[in-house]
């Protein structure tokens, strides 16, 4: 795969398209981390993810490209926009989006970029891969997932289910848990017997005592 490396001075059409898409992705990513408006950052992230999906398409990874468009551009950005809306973030320009350590962050980022670019150019200067279309189509990828990688696939589906349930538990307000429970470790069942009835979450103790106080017959019958 590295015997005859074509020259860098005569780029093919695929490389030109890839570099243009990469420039779009990098430019919009820079705007994501430097813009003063929160909603514009999310919208520039759409451009960056779309350009990356184009990069995947050029690299003949069609299925990954469409999954990128579906999940990142379709779902993740919408989730982020909902997060921006629900936290009542400032919609217009706001000058306090950057913290005080911008200079240190820039120094660290430039150092990381320098090290990575140097190592990558030094290590993969002679690497060349001819692109054969159809190598990453849904047919090949699906056969590979459901024959070889089926166990990680199932484990990942369980992980996704656990993450969704965790997100629901974290974002519901009628499941008591977290901040009030460490403040009143033993006093919760005495102080608010009515609020314990709704709780079926992480703090099982006040809910159990509250339920037993409200309906003792159910407690004896159920257990």
């Amino acid at each position: 795969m590295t015997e005859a490396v074509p020259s860098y001075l005569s780029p093919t059409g695929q490389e030109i398209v890839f570099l243009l898409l990469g420039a779009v992705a990098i430019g919009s990513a820079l705007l994501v981390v430097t813009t003063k408006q929160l909603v514009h950052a999310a919208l520039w992230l759409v451009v960056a993810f779309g350009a990356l999906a184009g990069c995947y398409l050029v690299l003949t990874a069609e299925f990954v490209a469409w999954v990128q468009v579906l999940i990142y551009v379709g779902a993740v950005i919408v989730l982020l926009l909902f997060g921006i809306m629900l936290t009542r973030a400032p919609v217009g320009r706001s000058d306090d989006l950057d913290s005080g350590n911008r200079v240190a962050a820039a120094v660290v980022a430039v150092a990381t970029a320098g090290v990575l670019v140097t190592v990558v150019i030094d290590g993969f200067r002679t690497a060349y891969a001819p692109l054969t279309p159809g190598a990453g189509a849904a047919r090949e990828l699906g056969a590979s997932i459901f024959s070889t990688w089926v166990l990680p696939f199932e484990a990942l589906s369980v992980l996704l289910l656990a993450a969704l349930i965790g997100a629901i538990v974290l974002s519901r307000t009628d499941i008591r848990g977290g901040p009030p429970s460490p403040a009143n470790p033993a006093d919760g069942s005495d102080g608010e017997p009515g609020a314990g009835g709704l709780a079926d979450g992480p703090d099982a103790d006040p809910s159990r005592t509250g339920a037993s106080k409200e309906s003792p017959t159910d407690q004896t019958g159920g257990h």
Partner: protein
Amino acid sequence: MHIVYPALVAALLFSIGVYGVLARRNTILVLMSVELMLNAVNLNLVAFDVWLGDRLHSGQVLTLFVIVIAAAEVGVGLAIILALYRNRKTVDIDHLRDLAEPADDPSPEDDPGARSASGARMPATAVPALIGAPTGGPPPRSRSEEVGGAGGGGRSGEEGRAVEDGPSAEGLSGEEGRPGEDPGHLGRGGAS
């Protein structure tokens, strides 16, 4: 295609993500920067899968797995951020300093009066004031100081304040944030 090109793009995207994670103050922007870094890794995986010509397509399959894990991470992360916003009324990382080392705190245990006085975190009693009138911050803060000072070392005053303030603050925040859930919150607030 030369593998240097996608590797370079991925390296630069990763560095931009590092800058965003370190320099941004809003938590949602930090989450976006983490997404940028994950996408840089995905581009690397796809490029090396194409380069190595793996018959099992392990690189692209791992890219799909990373995308799924990133979606789960964004879901849980946003839920955590929303819970944080409900409790603290802020998502600025600079203001979330509960795990920082205490500067000159004589008592290692949690004393809400002292902590609200030092401004380390927003007290629960300041939440209604922030919702109702943004300029009316000081009165509930002074009240919490007074209660915390009166409680002193005694646990009873502190717990009583927490029990008293918990449902009212949460009811107000729920009423403010989600108008659709008003009856449940009001009913629960009336019951307790």
